[in-house]
């Protein structure tokens, strides 16, 4: 019997048993949907992290005190490093702490950042309305602040915050600028748009410490980053006499670390989804065994009128493959659609992992063959005399 004829018989059998066909495919549909959606979302997440970091942040280097051996950094260290390390063109001290802000009866818990003018530029951020605070305001301990868009929304509910007053842990501040929205593109952790940025001396007063949480520096160009990291480490070693004074890390390195973590998580999730695909395959095998048992008499008849064992096994194998491939195609459609929806919800640019789609579909064919083979061989091994005798 030709392949076309066998295929027609298989399609006919599946169409006649619509409900059972749907249920048999469900496992594979869910499995493939999960694999493809997770792979797409994971890839999009990791891409988003990488592009964010490699865009404006390619020159950024973070120095984070490790708190070991009692070493702390202060604002003077930032300017000292800028003078000593030629590979960096800017360095800004960062001090941060949790504070509670008040405005017109509204209360909002947020993060207070104390720094020098220009820190925003190093991190690749900018002021959307108003202005950054100035060098003289920093020197004069002026009570001015630049706020993130989330903070502005929470405290001013959409009205223009420039020139208005807020109180942060009892200290009155005047808003001079609002930052450009960064978005939630990092995906994890805190909202980068929820912060109040003030001159560093003011922040020291409010938080009550002059210990920096970090120094952000900017290499002269992206190609200087590795040199700058090495030089900064060496200079810190000699200044503090320990290699553990601060962790020097470029944003690019951080980005690749983050994206490799995301990739591992993605593979892990896809692996779990792959297991559900395997369970779907077992579902198909189950249905195929029932089908073979139900159609024993038909199998006997087909053999009696000239079907070879190969004709019988091919017919049932094709049925199993059609189930898994159709399930795979439906799952691929749902996975692509679902992935795009999730990516939109996170504000990432939609991305379809075509390689993942191809692998998942190939996997669904393999599942059909693997789990269809045993029922098919059982069918073809039936003794025609016994099969014809069955009721």
């Amino acid at each position, binding site marked *: 019997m030709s392949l076309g004829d066998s295929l027609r018989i298989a399609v006919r059998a599946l169409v006649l048993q619509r409900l059972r066909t749907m249920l048999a495919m469900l496992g594979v549909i869910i499995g493939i949907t999960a694999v493809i959606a997770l792979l797409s979302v994971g890839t999009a997440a990791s891409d988003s992290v990488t592009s964010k970091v490699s865009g404006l942040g390619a020159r950024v280097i973070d120095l984070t005190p490790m708190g070991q051996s009692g070493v702390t950094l202060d604002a003077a260290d930032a300017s000292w490093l800028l003078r000593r390390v030629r590979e960096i063109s800017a360095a800004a001290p960062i001090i941060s702490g949790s504070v509670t802000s008040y405005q017109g009866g509204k209360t909002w818990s947020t993060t207070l950042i104390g720094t020098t003018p220009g820190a925003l530029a190093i991190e690749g951020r900018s002021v959307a309305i108003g202005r950054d605070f100035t060098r003289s305001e920093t020197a004069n301990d002026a009570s001015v602040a630049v706020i993130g868009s989330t903070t502005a929304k929470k405290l001013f509910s959409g009205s223009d915050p420039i020139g208005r007053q807020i109180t942060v842990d009892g200290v009155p501040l005047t808003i001079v600028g609002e930052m450009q929205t960064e978005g939630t593109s990092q995906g994890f952790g805190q909202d980068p748009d929820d912060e109040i940025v003030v001159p560093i001396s003011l922040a020291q007063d409010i938080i009550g410490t002059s210990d920096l949480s970090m120094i952000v520096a900017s290499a002269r160009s992206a190609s200087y980053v590795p040199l700058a990291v090495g030089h900064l480490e060496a200079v810190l070693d000699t200044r503090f006499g320990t290699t553990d004074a601060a962790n020097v890390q470029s944003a690019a390195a951080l980005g690749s670390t983050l994206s490799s973590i995301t990739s591992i998580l993605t593979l892990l999730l896809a692996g779990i989804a792959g297991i559900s695909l395997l369970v779907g395959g077992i579902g198909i095998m189950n249905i195929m065994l029932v089908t073979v048992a139900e159609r024993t008499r038909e199998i006997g008849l087909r053999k009696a009128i000239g*079907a070879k064992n190969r004709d019988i096994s091919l017919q049932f194998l094709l049925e199993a493959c059609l189930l898994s491939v159709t399930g795979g195609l439906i799952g691929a459609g749902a996975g692509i659609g679902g992935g795009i929806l999730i990516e939109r919800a996170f504000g990432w640019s939609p991305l379809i992992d075509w390689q993942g789609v191809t692998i998942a579909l190939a996997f669904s064919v393999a599942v059909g063959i693997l789990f269809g083979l045993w029922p098919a061989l059982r069918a073809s091994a039936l003794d025609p*005399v016994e099969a*014809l005798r069955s009721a």
Partner: protein
Amino acid sequence: MDVISVEGLSHTYLSGSLRVAALEGVDFGIPEGQMAAIVGPSGSGKSTLLHILGCLMQVERGTYRLSGEDVTKLPGDELARVRGTRIGFVFQAYNLVPQLTALENVELPLAYLGTPRRQRRQRAMQALEAVGLGERARHRPFELSGGQQQRVGVARAVVTEPSVILADEPTGNLDTASGQAVMELFRDLHRQGRTIVVVTHAPEVAAGCERTIHIRDGRVVKDARREGRPRDVARG
């Protein structure tokens, strides 16, 4: 020449731990164009004989020649080929594939032979018309009466132009009128020169055949031909 020729056919089967003889040295030949009935009570071994004649079962001892070819020791796939080309089965329970139309059921043996689609459609249609069901070609089995289903079964048996038509209690599930119609169909085929073997325990079915082979306890106990005197063979 004999279409069917069996010599010293013996077969045993296991019943629990006991080996029971189903056939003990059966010999007979059926010449081309004959319509013969094989009769016997249940347990006589006639079902085993039918399965061997239909190449559904391998012969344990003895030889079986079908159209001159020794099919005794053929492997499984070769037996399938012999079933597809030389034998046309008609079953008591019709055994039509429920999801296929009458026409497609008749086409099925040709499909397994690899006959091109157009040609097999044409031949199947002719076979259906020959049994008077040309109008019902597009109907599925459940839309047909028992008698009609059996006629589709007969069309399916003859569509491959087999050497022999093997019918197993072909009227067993039918009322008298439908049964007679089906037997009339067999006699038509017989008149066209086809070789037909009917296995039955219905005397009226056997009476319609020109020869009756009686089986009891795995042996041929009587071989009666309507022309000439019936004679006892009781050999083996």
